[in-house]
């Protein structure tokens, strides 16, 4: 009601300004893969390094978005989203490993002296089945975990710590060589994807476009959800779960739906991430990775979809730059960034732009 005029003005300009900036960003992102296809000598050529770096950040942005759906809207802080991301990545990695191995066994299996594929590897040479796995593996795990967790009304910090324990346990499991996912080395040295050279500029550009499409798709989906009655129920759930139950809503179903959706989005992001960075290993499940994802969201602005994207972009961009510019001191910058952001930007960076309520 009594907001300073400047902010009100900004808010009014917001939709136009925001839409303009968004369109610009989208145009730039769409142009990147095309410019990558130009010959290397061309002045406008975008290097594979830039393309994979931005592609990676796009995947992270999807994770941030997915996390924001459960944390920002439903109030469930997951410290285990890295697990779903990694599961999607592993599912894609299985396909890529089979592609690279041809008719034989993946290299790490012959190393363990296994003579045949374990049962969970059957069918992974089929791309379609792998796509299904990308969705099913994180989805079913999230469903099972969510079903039990929400049934017994685990929430708040308890929920966070449980998700952390889950991803930690999974990390230990995947570190074991006998688990059959390559142990600490994970999957690497991919060759082809659907018959295309994975290092070919065309493949890279296509993967980049897929990531962009996934991001835009998730954003639209998230926007639709947030602005439907479903989204309002989630917000209500976050603020007063008991009240909502006495209104006759079963919070379990709502939580489970958004939780599984979020996990699946992470899985898809992981699946696109792996062929771009060329490796998947259990360290993606390390609890610190998931905490970092929470930080992207918080820094960008919790409960606003654009904020999550912005946070993922900012932190990862900063990280990529700091690690080169100040290899010895970048952790100071990053740490200070988090502290300053939480102290002075309670609504995240997006709060600065004056559209902190809802995007």
């Amino acid at each position: 009601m009594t907001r300073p005029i400047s902010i009100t003005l900004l808010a009014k300009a917001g939709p136009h300004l925001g839409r303009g900036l968004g369109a610009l960003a989208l145009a730039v992102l769409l142009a990147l893969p095309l410019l990558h296809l130009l010959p290397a000598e061309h002045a406008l050529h975008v290097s594979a390094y830039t393309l994979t770096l931005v592609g990676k950040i796009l995947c992270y942005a999807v994770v941030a978005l997915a996390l924001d759906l459960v944390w920002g809207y439903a109030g469930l802080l997951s410290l285990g989203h890295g697990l779903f991301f990694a599961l999607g990545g592993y599912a894609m990695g299985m396909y890529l490993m089979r592609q690279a191995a041809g008719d034989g066994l993946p290299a790490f299996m012959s190393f363990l002296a296994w003579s045949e594929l374990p049962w969970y590897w059957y069918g992974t040479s089929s791309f379609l089945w792998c796509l299904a796995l990308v969705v099913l593996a994180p989805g079913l795990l999230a469903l099972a975990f969510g079903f039990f967790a929400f049934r017994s009304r685990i929430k708040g910090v308890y929920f966070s710590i449980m998700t952390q324990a889950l991803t930690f346990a999974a990390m230990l499991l995947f570190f074991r060589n006998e688990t059959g996912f390559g142990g600490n080395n994970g999957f690497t040295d991919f060759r082809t994807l659907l018959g295309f050279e994975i290092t070919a500029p065309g493949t890279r550009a296509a993967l980049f476009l897929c990531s962009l499409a996934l991001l835009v798709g998730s954003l639209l989906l998230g926007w639709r959800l947030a602005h439907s009655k479903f989204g309002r129920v989630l917000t209500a759930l976050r603020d007063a779960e008991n009240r909502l139950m006495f209104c006759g809503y079963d919070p379990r179903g709502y939580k489970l739906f958004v939780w599984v959706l979020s996990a699946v989005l992470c899985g898809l992001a992981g699946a696109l991430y792996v062929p771009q960075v060329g490796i998947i290993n259990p360290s993606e499940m390390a609890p610190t990775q998931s905490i970092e994802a929470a930080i992207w969201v918080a820094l960008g602005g919790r409960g606003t979809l654009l904020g999550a994207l912005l946070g993922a972009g900012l932190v990862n961009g900063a990280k990529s730059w700091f690690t080169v510019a100040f290899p010895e001191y970048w952790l100071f910058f990053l740490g200070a960034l988090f502290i300053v952001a939480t102290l002075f930007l309670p609504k995240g960076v997006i709060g600065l732009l004056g559209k902190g309520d809802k995007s």
Partner: protein
Amino acid sequence: MIATPSPTCMLEPAFHPAGVGRDAIGLGQSAGRGLDVRHGTILTLEDISVSFDGFKALNALNLYIGVGELRCIIGPNGAGKTTLMDVITGKTRPDRGQAWFGETLDLTRMSEVEIAQAGIGRKFQKPTVFEALSVFENLELALKTDKSVWASLRARLSGAQKDRIEEVLTTIRLEGSRHRPAGLLSHGQKQFLEIGMLLVQDPQLLLLDEPVAGMTDAETEFTAELFKSLARQHSLMVVEHDMGFVGTIADHVTVLHQGSVLAEGSLEQVQANERVIEVYLGR
């Protein structure tokens, strides 16, 4: 004031002193919408006990509320009033005893959500509304409709539903604030919003925990009118400390003390009860 009058015919519930029994109250055969209230009792609590770490919050409590009745529950602090509400709404499971909604619904076996969907609405002691949502959205969420996940993904408000919300907005005098976030409302306004949410939810039994706390006299008076008009089509159970308010609305008062019913009857009757005086005034 209420736009959808219930088709069932309701008579003034007969008054019976405490301990007479469960067949005492109400004549209605059905409160509508499938709830079986053949014996005229909408809520039956028998021998309910709840204890927390040895402390007996409810102790072999018996309580019957008739269809269309407006019942006030009074009692000193710690008498178990809120725990009683918790038991009815499924939030706390009794260690012992039976709780029936109508003749067939066993409240001790139902989840909070099932109980709410079966037609028991509750207003909390501390007004609880969805602070991040606007007043209109609060009412929209509470509106009686299909509340499954799939339904709300596709939900669109129908004209009739919008009218209903507008109507309640007028009733609770918040029509000017419909787009304000509920978190910005005053305490009293929040109380009204919560009552409004109960109204659109259209439950058969309303549990109201200190509904007039923090209200001005005028607001209290208005609330009293509102409750009186609600009774008959709905059953109400009001927990209140404000004796004046109780006096205005109640035809039937139950006094709780140390987790069980101390006295039951009209306000004058319980006020004259020696044991009640002793409990309230101390010895």
